[in-house]
């Protein structure tokens, strides 16, 4: 695509100056007149009866305006995917993050003091912390109202005949892999301000990633609280990181609403860092049994996977991660026979939720680690087995995904070339290389009934353009991508475009910043709206210039005739002429784009996404046999992105995702010991620092996706999907030990090396 002025260019992020000067207002920075400060009391035990809950001292503290407990939640209201989570718990607690009381006070300090004055007596109960134990016959029930600890969500996908394929396979590899809890570590913690006006319209200042869905959740809550037929307005402050953590509504938000209702004043709750670790929902831990086979030539014959997920004590949208795990399980490489089952199991642990990749990293860790095991059994180079089985455009996968653009092979070859694979593998000197590929949704994901996004464009009398989008900005750069698309279509400078994206009273509906969908869906929506407004502009300009519409073009905000460049008119003048005339008009256009993808049917088949994103990561590591330390010498992340609307921002997604993946692979872990979080702070939770950044190359492969805006596909999540298995495979190549349990710590490597030595001796 030649002649593009804005699309494909390294244009700085629109809101970066605001953020680099400290002017951006995050939820932490927001003060509303009359605002009170809310604070939550959490359970002391992971499983206990509440024998006594005395709030009298807290209520009597000067400056305290309200203290609420489970009894103050009207109509037994519960939230969450299975409506199993009361915002304040009564009678019994099921995890150490259970909210049992909350305070609103005139200052943060008084609110904290009041929390300390709440007197609780518990009777501790034995808990269940291991999902395998919780699945056993006769295990104590986490929720007594349900018949089993296994959630009634039967995840099962079957294609072809796995048993027959097993018999016909020349080689089979099988093993068990497990993954840990990791948390988002958004630098800006979670928070909100809830405020009611005299008519009981609720305004929530929020850092949610799902304003339209959150609006629905809060409306439902208001109804339960006796406020029927009211309005909810969500205003997003600048959001200090998302990564999936704000993809659901949380107890603290309902608590803020209840406190605001009780006090008739705005109430702010912002998490401390300790609370952020304790009371936000991490990536779900998994235990995966996997078996894969191939024929004598290395062609995959089947893949069988059975997973157990620790759901924790309550159920969020995170319980649907198996639906996204199915994407790689059914469709990463060409596999004719598939069997997959997953069980989400209640325990007395923290409950899990969405985290960048949404189950895909857990599944891909097992698939890609096991694929190397299979390649070894078959005597085939790891690269070769991936080449043989790579996805291709035109393919229809077992889940009925229709593969349009597919740059998987190109990504693999980029890794091979840039890592110098041939010379770097099988050296046996403590250095090794490994790789892993990925598939992810790249053209939205129809999880809900609508997967759409709306855009409104209005042009003012001076030729300045407001783009009002449903797309949430969580740091990923949707503000800039959308502006680039509009600038390209209209032929106006980036600075003339203002993107409004944070107010449900103004912005059209959008399903949320998830599934790497924003560039694709919001981009297509903006593209459609820009084309509509351009048609209006050209129609008026044509009349003014006495030229046919077809003869006109616009550049730098000037409309001119392609036949006669002397005939031109600035955009602002066109608009003023349209506005200030008898029967005048304003220029506004709207466009709702809902992609032509499909919900899954009962058998989990359906074209979930309009297009699919591919990638391959390759890594060279050096393993110290004495200490077990892993050093990354070189990291290649090649991604098929369709078309890079903004290569600079796109590289930022790959670098950022990649380092999150490295953290997941090598160090990060929330340590829960019998329901208690042991490392809920930055010192003990080893999130990567600048010292952990390896030499890294982000390689952009463009496959020109026909359905994408200017050819683009999604890239928000893929950066961390194949990281852990690529590293695990490289470690195996370096020192011959395979670590199957994340994170791959030096201790695990040393233990494995010792075992290996023992076997030799």
């Amino acid at each position: 695509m030649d002649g593009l002025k804005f699309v494909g260019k390294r244009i700085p992020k629109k809101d970066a100056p605001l953020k680099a000067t400290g002017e951006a207002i995050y939820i932490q920075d927001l003060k509303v007149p009359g605002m009170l400060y809310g604070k939550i009391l959490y359970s002391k035990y992971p499983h206990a009866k509440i024998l006594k809950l005395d709030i009298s001292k807290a209520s009597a503290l000067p400056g305290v305006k309200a203290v609420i407990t489970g009894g103050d939640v009207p109509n037994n209201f519960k939230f969450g995917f299975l409506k199993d989570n009361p915002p304040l718990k009564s009678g019994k607690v099921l995890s150490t993050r259970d909210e049992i009381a909350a305070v609103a006070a005139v200052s943060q300090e008084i609110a904290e003091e009041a929390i300390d004055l709440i007197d609780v007596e518990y009777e501790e109960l034995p808990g269940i912390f291991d999902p395998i134990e919780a699945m056993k016959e006769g295990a104590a029930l986490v929720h007594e109202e349900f018949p089993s600890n296994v959630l009634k969500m039967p995840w099962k996908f079957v294609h072809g005949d796995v048993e027959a394929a097993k018999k016909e396979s020349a080689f089979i590899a099988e093993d068990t892999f497990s993954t840990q809890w990791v948390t988002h570590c958004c630098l800006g913690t979670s928070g909100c301000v809830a405020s009611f006006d005299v008519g009981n319209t609720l305004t929530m200042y929020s850092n949610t990633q799902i304003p339209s869905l959150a609006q629905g959740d809060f409306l439902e809550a208001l109804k339960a609280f006796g406020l029927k037929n009211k309005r909810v307005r969500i205003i997003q402050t600048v959001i200090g990181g998302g990564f999936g953590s704000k993809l659901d509504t949380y107890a603290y938000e309902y608590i803020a609403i209840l406190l605001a209702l009780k006090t008739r004043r705005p109430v702010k709750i912002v998490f401390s860092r300790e609370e952020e670790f304790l009371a936000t929902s991490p990536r779900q831990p998994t235990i995966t049994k996997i078996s894969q086979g191939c024929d004598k030539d290395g062609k995959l014959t089947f893949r069988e996977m059975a997973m157990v997920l620790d759901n924790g004590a309550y159920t969020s949208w995170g319980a649907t991660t198996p639906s996204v795990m199915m994407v790689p399980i059914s469709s990463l490489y060409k596999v004719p026979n598939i069997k997959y089952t997953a069980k989400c199991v209640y325990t007395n642990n923290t409950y899990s939720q969405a985290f960048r990749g949404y189950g895909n990293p857990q599944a891909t860790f097992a698939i890609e680690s096991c694929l190397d095991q299979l390649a070894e059994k078959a005597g085939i180079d790891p690269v070769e087995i991936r080449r043989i089985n790579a996805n291709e455009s035109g393919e229809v996968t077992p889940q009925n995904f229709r593969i349009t653009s597919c740059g998987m092979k190109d990504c693999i070859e980029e890794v091979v070339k840039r890592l110098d694979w041939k010379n770097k593998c099988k050296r046996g000197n403590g250095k090794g290389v490994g790789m892993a590929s990925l598939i992810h949704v790249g053209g939205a994901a129809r999880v809900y009934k609508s997967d759409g996004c709306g855009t409104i464009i209005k042009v003012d009398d001076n030729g300045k353009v407001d783009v009002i989008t449903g797309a949430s900005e969580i740091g990923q750069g949707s503000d800039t991508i959308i502006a680039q698309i509009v600038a390209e279509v209209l032929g106006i400078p980036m600075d003339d475009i203002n993107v409004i994206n944070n107010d449900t009273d103004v912005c059209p509906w959008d399903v949320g910043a998830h599934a790497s969908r924003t560039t694709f869906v919001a981009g297509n929506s903006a593209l459609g709206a820009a084309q509509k407004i351009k048609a209006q502009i050209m129609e008026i300009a044509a009349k003014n210039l006495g030229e046919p519409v077809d003869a006109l073009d616009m550049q730098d905000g000037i409309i001119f005739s392609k036949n006669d460049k002397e005939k031109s008119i600035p955009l602002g003048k066109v608009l003023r002429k349209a506005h200030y005339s008898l029967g005048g008009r304003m220029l506004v256009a709207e466009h709702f784009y809902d992609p032509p993808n499909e919900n899954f049917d009962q058998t989990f088949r359906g074209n979930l996404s309009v297009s699919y994103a591919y990638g391959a990561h390759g890594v060279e590591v050096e393993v110290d046999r004495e200490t077990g330390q892993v050093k990354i010498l070189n990291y290649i992340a090649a991604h098929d992105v369709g078309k890079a609307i903004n290569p600079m921002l796109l590289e930022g997604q790959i670098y950022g995702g990649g380092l999150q993946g490295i953290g997941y692979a090598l160090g990060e872990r929330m340590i829960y010991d019998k329901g208690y979080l042991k490392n809920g702070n930055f010192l003990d939770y080893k999130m990567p620092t600048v010292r952990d950044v390896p030499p890294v190359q982000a390689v952009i492969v463009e496959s020109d996706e026909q359905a994408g805006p200017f050819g683009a596909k999604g890239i928000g999540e893929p950066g961390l999907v194949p990281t852990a298995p690529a590293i695990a495979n490289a470690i195996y190549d370096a020192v011959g030990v395979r670590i199957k349990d994340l994170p791959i710590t030096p201790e695990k490597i040393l233990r494995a090396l010792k075992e290996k030595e023992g076997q030799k001796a």
Partner: protein
Amino acid sequence: MKKEINFTLNNEKVTVEADTQWTLLYVLREVLEMTGTKEGCGYGECGACTVVIDGQAVNSCLYPIMEVEGRNIITIEGLMTKSGELDPIQKAFVDEGAVQCGFCIPGMIMSAKALLDAKPKPTEDEIKESIEGNLCRCTGYVKIIDAIKSVAGGR
């Protein structure tokens, strides 16, 4: 107990009636309502609250206000020129794509400022050392390093 504290803040003399228990961060954000300096953890492990005191980058969340008497403090609000132009470090962060969610960025920039004021041409290792106490979850740090390098004329 409150006490009067005098210091220089972004090249202006300031007097604050401060509780002796307060931190510098608390005074900046809650008393002076300068919210450019962020609180990411409150215990000195994330660097979001970094300011420059007498040329040194420090975590303002741990810094007792009583220690500030007579000192010279620069915060993120003090970098832009009076005519509204970005400081070269701020501009580099914008132009190099080093800003995503942005919550860590004021602290990052202040760490970079302390470094570059003391050492206009730092090595890559010195750049990393200067921001190793500043956590960022979005960027993978790559473009942050690039931005600081570009100010140092190292590109």
